[in-house]
C-alpha cells in the first residue's frame, strides 16, 4: 500500500532567513546576451499587493531540455550553468522578478509539443498549499494557439492571464490570487 502524503501547511510570514538568504532570482547573469527579465506583482482579492509571497520558477533550457534525469533526450544539449530553478520573494510593493533564458518548446501529452513556458509555484501566508501557474511568452502566438494546455482552457479571459505582457523588452506577469482578472491556477 502506498503511503499517504504529508499535508501541506502555509509557508507563513517568517520564511525569509531560511528560504531567501541568498538571491536565486537570477538564473543567468543580466549581461548574458540572451537574458530575459520577468517582472510581476502579486495582488490579493481586494487588489492590495502581497508583500510576503515567494515565487518559484522551473523551466527547460533554451534548447527545451530539463536538467533532470527524467528528461533523457540526449540529442538536446544540457547547459552546465543553467539549472532552470529560480526563487524570488515579493518586496513591500508586492513585486518579484527573475532574470533567465527563454526556454525552448518541450513535449506535451499525446506527443504534441507545448509552447515555451515556465512552471510557477506561489507560496504565501494565507495559502495553505502552493498555487501552481505557468508563464507563456507573448511572441509565441502560433505555438501558444496550439499549446495543449492553453488551448484547452475555454474561458478566454482566464487563458489570457497565462501569457506575459511585453513592456519594452521586460516581460510582465502579474499574479492575481482572487477576484477580477484572477490568474489561472492548476491542479496537479
Amino acid at each position: 500500500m502506498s503511503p499517504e502524503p504529508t499535508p501541506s501547511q502555509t509557508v507563513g510570514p517568517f520564511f525569509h532567513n531560511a528560504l531567501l538568504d541568498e538571491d536565486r532570482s537570477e538564473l543567468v547573469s543580466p549581461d548574458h546576451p540572451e537574458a530575459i527579465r520577468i517582472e510581476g506583482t502579486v495582488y490579493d482579492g481586494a487588489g492590495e499587493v502581497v508583500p510576503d509571497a515567494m515565487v518559484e520558477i522551473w523551466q527547460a533550457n533554451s534548447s527545451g531540455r530539463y536538467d533532470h534525469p527524467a528528461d533523457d533526450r540526449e540529442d538536446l544539449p544540457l547547459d552546465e550553468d543553467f539549472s532552470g530553478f529560480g526563487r524570488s520573494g515579493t518586496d513591500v510593493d508586492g513585486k518579484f522578478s527573475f532574470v533567465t533564458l527563454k526556454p525552448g518548446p518541450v513535449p506535451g501529452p499525446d506527443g504534441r509539443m507545448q509552447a515555451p513556458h515556465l512552471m510557477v509555484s506561489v507560496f504565501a501566508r494565507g495559502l495553505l498549499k502552493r498555487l501552481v501557474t505557468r508563464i507563456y511568452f507573448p511572441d509565441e502566438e502560433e505555438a501558444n494557439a496550439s499549446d495543449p494546455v492553453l488551448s484547452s482552457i475555454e474561458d478566454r479571459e482566464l487563458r489570457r492571464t497565462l501569457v506575459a505582457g511585453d513592456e519594452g523588452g521586460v516581460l510582465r506577469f502579474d499574479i492575481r490570487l482572487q477576484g477580477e482578472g484572477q490568474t489561472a491556477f492548476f491542479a496537479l
Partner: protein
Amino acid sequence: MAVGRETTNEATGAGREDGRQPPYLYPDYVATRLRAPKKPLIILPRTLSDTTGPAYGSGPIGELDDDLTRQHSGEPLGERIIVTGRVLDGDGRPVRGGLIEIWQANAAGRYTHKLDQHPAPLDPNFSGAGRCLTDEEGRYRFVTIKPGAYPWKNHENAWRPAHIHLSLFGSAFRSRLITQMYFPGDPLFEHDPIFQSVRDEKAQQRMISSFDLETTRPEWALGYRFDIVLEGREATPMENHR
C-alpha cells in the same frame, strides 16, 4: 482525465482531497479569505514540465547547517532536541539527496524576523534556520531547540502550536512541499485554524512528530521522529547529478 479540462473541483479543495490536504479557502484562517482563488482549478496533464524538477533547490550545504544550536558563539536557550525521519515519495521509495530547508521560532516563541513583533526575547545564539540533504535511505537529521508557541492576530487570544516549518523538493515539480511539523499532545491543536484546515484526523496525525526514545541521546537531547511523504507516484528516482 481530459487534458486541461477545467475541473468541477471547487477551488476550496473540497472533494478531490477528502480533507487530507487543506483547502485554499478556510475562513477560520482569516488570511485565506482574500488570497484563496475562487475560479476552478485547471487539471494539468502530466508532462516533462512537472515530472522533472529542481534536483537541488539550493547551493552547497554548510557544515553547521543541520545543527541550529551551533551556528553562533554560544548555545541557544531552550530544550535541545533531535529531529529525524525519512522522506519517501508517493510509492514509498526513499527520496535520496533531497534538500530540506527548515525554519522556526526560538524557545520563547520569537522568530528572528523584522516583522515578528511578539514581545518575547530574541536569542542572540539562535537564528532558527537550517538545511540538510537526505541520505541514501531518505533519512535526514537536525539538531535544534524546541520552538515555543506564539500569539498571532488571527482571532482573539490566538496562539500557534509549537512547530517547525519544512520545505522539500522531492524528485519532481509535482512533489514540492512546504509543511509544518508539530509536537505530540499540544493542547493548542484544537484552537489552531492552520492545523485544523486539514480536516481528516489521520492526515492531521501525519503532521505531528512522535517522541522517539531511540533517537533520544542520554544526558543530552530528546529525540522526535517525523517521516514525510511527498506527492507523486511514478516518480523518478532522485539522482545526485548536480
